[in-house]
């Protein structure tokens, strides 16, 4: 098995203590960046590594950093720690187990774009993690690893935490920035994107926790080493959050390109109670439902391959569904989530999610006809491509794929009589 890059705390006791983290080479990469590399060299190294955003979109990280407007100051780094996708629980483990590597990643990213302030936006439920991070940041300041004139240069950096308060939409980067500014967490019209117009209207890089936690290793070991892990276009390791009907749910850090089968059966211990696997959601509740046949199980988990089975890798939050589960119930769950979490800004998402929830509940309770399933599908397609952010889009992934690929489950729930009553 590949060595851990991110979940190193599983092999190194007390890695969340600064002295242990430093004994293991912690903050050498930050020192190297500041004392031996120009900001542009740091960005180019990250770009060359092929690192892509781990929050779901898979956008090349180094490339994002190059988009920062050099003529508008100050610059900001905002770490997205609003982890809220049902099925995703990786950033939480990083911040609890290996917090200093994450903070070092934030610091290197800040140096690369010459930000003097960085913020960590955590979901409100991570209250305890934020309190611990505040102490850890204070330790770094006491050790001279954050603060003014770092490593006797003129570079200075402060990092602050900021707690959200229970809104899935704030994981969307422009909604997150609005929220940080003290407004309702609703997405902005894009473009302009945050590297041009971000926090307080200033150039801002927003990166996911897992993405940033990769950065210290890329700087200390180099982009060639990083590229040797994973696939050609999806480099490095990824934390796969495995949940649902598996014997051993949990986080598994594996090279990108590992097949679903290896994750679910070798690491996850297979399906409990002698049941058969039926469907896979690869990107949490925002996923299409993949029919879990042999071809799907042999599909490598990377951004290029998962679309071959009609889905996206997203944040790699793999929810396993077995043959005891009817897909209309899955849709009932995801639609309750999305109708609750729609921020209300765009009508197709706000109204569409509400009505989809009502239709699916009618279907599930046996009070619907096949025409209601068609209506559900129709509403879903009317949301498609009509919203400012991806939430509307996410809400229909399971709906359209579920109806198309698991039609029998819906046929079993409807009757013509039901519709007349």
């Amino acid at each position: 098995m590949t060595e851990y890059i991110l979940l190193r705390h599983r092999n190194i006791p007390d890695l969340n203590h600064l002295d242990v983290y430093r004994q293991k080479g912690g903050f050498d990469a930050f020192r190297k960046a500041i004392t031996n590399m120009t900001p542009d060299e740091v960005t180019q190294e990250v770009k060359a590594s092929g690192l892509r955003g781990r929050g779901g979109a898979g956008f090349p990280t180094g490339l994002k950093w190059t988009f920062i407007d050099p003529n508008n100051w100050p610059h900001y780094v905002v770490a997205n720690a609003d982890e809220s996708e049902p099925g995703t629980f990786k950033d939480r483990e990083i911040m609890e187990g290996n917090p200093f590597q994450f903070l070092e990643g934030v610091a290197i990213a800040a140096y690369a774009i010459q930000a003097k302030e960085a913020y960590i936006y955590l979901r409100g439920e991570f209250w305890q993690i934020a309190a611990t991070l505040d102490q850890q940041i204070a330790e770094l300041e006491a050790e001279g690893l954050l603060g003014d004139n770092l490593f006797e240069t003129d570079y200075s950096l402060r990092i602050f935490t900021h707690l959200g308060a229970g809104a899935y939409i704030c994981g969307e980067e422009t909604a997150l920035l609005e929220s940080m500014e003290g407004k309702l967490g609703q997405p902005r019209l894009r473009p302009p994107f945050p590297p041009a117009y971000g926090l307080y209207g200033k150039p801002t890089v927003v990166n996911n926790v897992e993405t940033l936690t990769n950065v210290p290793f890329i700087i200390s070991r180099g982009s060639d080493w990083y590229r040797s892990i994973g696939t050609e276009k999806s480099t490095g390791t990824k934390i796969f959050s495995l949940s649902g009907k598996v014997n051993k749910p949990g986080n598994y850090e594996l090279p990108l390109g590992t097949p679903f089968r290896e994750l679910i059966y070798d690491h996850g211990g297979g399906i409990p109670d002698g049941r058969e696997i039926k469907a896979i959601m690869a990107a949490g509740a925002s996923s299409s439902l993949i029919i879990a046949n042999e071809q799907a199980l042999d599909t490598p988990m990377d951004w290029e391959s998962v679309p071959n089975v009609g889905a996206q890798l997203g944040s790699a939050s793999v929810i396993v569904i077995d043959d005891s589960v009817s897909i209309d119930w899955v849709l009932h769950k995801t639609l309750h989530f999305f109708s609750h979490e729609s921020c209300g800004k765009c009508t197709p998402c706000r109204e569409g999610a509400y009505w989809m929830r009502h239709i699916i509940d009618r279907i599930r309770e046996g009070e619907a006809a096949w025409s209601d399933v068609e209506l559900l599908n129709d509403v879903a397609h009317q949301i498609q491509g009509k919203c400012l952010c991806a939430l509307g889009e996410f809400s229909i992934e399971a709906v359209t794929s579920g109806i198309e690929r698991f039609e029998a489950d819906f046929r079993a729930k409807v009757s013509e009589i039901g519709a007349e009553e």
Partner: protein
Amino acid sequence: MIAEKYAVEIESILAKYPPEQKKSAVMPLLYLAQREGGYVTKQAMVEIAEILDITPTEVASIIGFYTLYYDKPGGKIRIQVCNDLPCALRGADEFLEKLCENLGIEVGEMTQDGSVTVEAVMCLAACDKAPMFQVQSGEGIAYYENQTVDSALGVVEEMRKQDAPS
């Protein structure tokens, strides 16, 4: 009066943001305001608005938008069970139903003694350790994972004891 009571905290919260962007402090100040009673009073809304040079209506809109802020009193202890898809696949719906049954309430209600409210909430990023819940109280937020109805009732008992005036 939170301005007097938490003067030091308020100052350190405001110091996190550029002076001309102090509106950013509205979320941390709301957490401060509901630390004691578990909800934000009208008086506190007005005070926060004054501190930040915004209107009380803007403060109220933030409370309304985000689920972790309250403008009405609830149980001192809010037990918030995630029953989203991954947790439900691990029995969270049954867990929630039985827990409420044992406490003699429906989901979303407060126990008769006013000590505990049980709510269903959206994903809490602990999908592999379901059934799970968080407890939101004046002390902050704590996670309880890999729970059974019995263990959850034990947690409730323990908290009720701590909460009782000695």
